[in-house]
């Protein structure tokens, strides 16, 4: 066992872990933050996407021990986030989910897309979203929701 201290959604957690524990398991099993979903555990599906020090990452492809001293943000940590609020609303309005399993990863990734590429068009979203797998929707409504959220936020900025 090795001790780590990780800040999760603003709260510091110090604990002993086994080196092989993934960040995803750390979040779900220790922090009981179950918005982060585990699909493939090999980096292919994107359901477990979270932020580490502000950068999107697959939490199944990070060891918790490698996050010692770092700040992690999961979907639960975006309650007051302006971009996430718009995305939530447009996902609802566009019916951008069915079973919802991929949605946490979709939302965290969509927020990152809108931060890097404000007001993206459908083609750009499609390309940027290609690492997130959804088995229900066929993607069309997810893409529509992200494009709409980007346009709304762009207008809000006077853009």
């Amino acid at each position, binding site marked *: 066992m090795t001790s780590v201290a990780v800040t999760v959604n603003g709260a510091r957690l110090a604990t002993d872990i086994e080196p092989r524990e993934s960040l995803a398991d750390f979040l779900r099993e220790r922090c009981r933050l179950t918005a982060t979903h585990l699909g493939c555990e090999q980096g292919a599906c994107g359901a477990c996407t979270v932020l580490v020090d502000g950068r999107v990452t697959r939490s199944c492809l990070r060891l918790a021990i490698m996050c010692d001293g770092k700040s992690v943000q999961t979907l639960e940590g975006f309650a007051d986030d302006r971009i996430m609020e718009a995305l939530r609303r447009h996902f609802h309005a566009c019916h951008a989910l069915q079973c919802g399993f991929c949605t946490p990863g979709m939302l965290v990734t969509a927020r990152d897309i809108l931060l890097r590429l404000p007001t993206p068009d459908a083609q750009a979203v499609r*390309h940027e979203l290609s690492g997130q797998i959804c088995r229900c929707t066929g993607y069309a409504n997810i893409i529509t929701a992200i494009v709409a959220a980007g346009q709304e936020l762009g207008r809000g900025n006077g853009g």
Partner: protein
Amino acid sequence: MKPAAFEYVRPKTVPEAIELLARAGTSVAVIAGGQSLIPLLNLRIAQPDLLVDVGGLEELKETGETADGLRIGALTTHSDIEDGKLPDLFGGLMQHVASGISYRAIRNYGTIGGSVALADPAADWPVCLMALGANVRIATRNGTRPEPVSDFVRGQYTTSLEKDEIILGFDLKRPQAPLRWGSSKVARKSGAFASSIAIVVEPGNGGPVAVALAGAGPRACLLPGVAKQVSSGASSDDMLRATVAQDLAALAPETDSYSRRLHASTVLRAVRDMRSR
């Protein structure tokens, strides 16, 4: 699945890391970004006794312009390159290559050193660095040794790296005049490893053209015949196709007919891409 148990150490200096790598009777894996290694650990394809995390080694972050070119630290991520955090001496080629690797979530942690150390036959960096004539800088017990990337990569997941050696980074020569480049990549799914990548680089001062191909055979390779033909300027599509076939017959004789056509297409597209710039 979950990884089998391993010991984890995060050394603070390169000599300390080399000492750990050389530990007798222990299977050791080096981890940097972990974007290829952790899936292998999760699937228990790799089951090392000891994981040496080189993420804290300052020597592997040494990046910037040198007297005769560019030094890139092994820990430089694909995102760093995509976002233009490196001086651009090669007309945007490296930025273009970086932005085509996997997905943003992977690019944020995957490193250029890790990509070359793994030496996947279809990886993006070995073929790009070969086309640019880069050297890899390796830390050994007795100091450092440079080696051209085209010699360093020996075969499928095989390099000249000894058990107790670590990639420090890469040195690239500054072009004498602005270079021209072209590239083409075919992958069955965006973000997946490619079936074929061709990169063509033409130095601005009339120096020799380099044509590099990944996805054919066990390692990325330079295509000498095609390079010569592209240099000559007057090469039709049919002539180029025939020369790609000749180079492939010599370098990757196992290539099947579909792959031969595929590689000919990516090389032709890369040449066209370069000539259109």
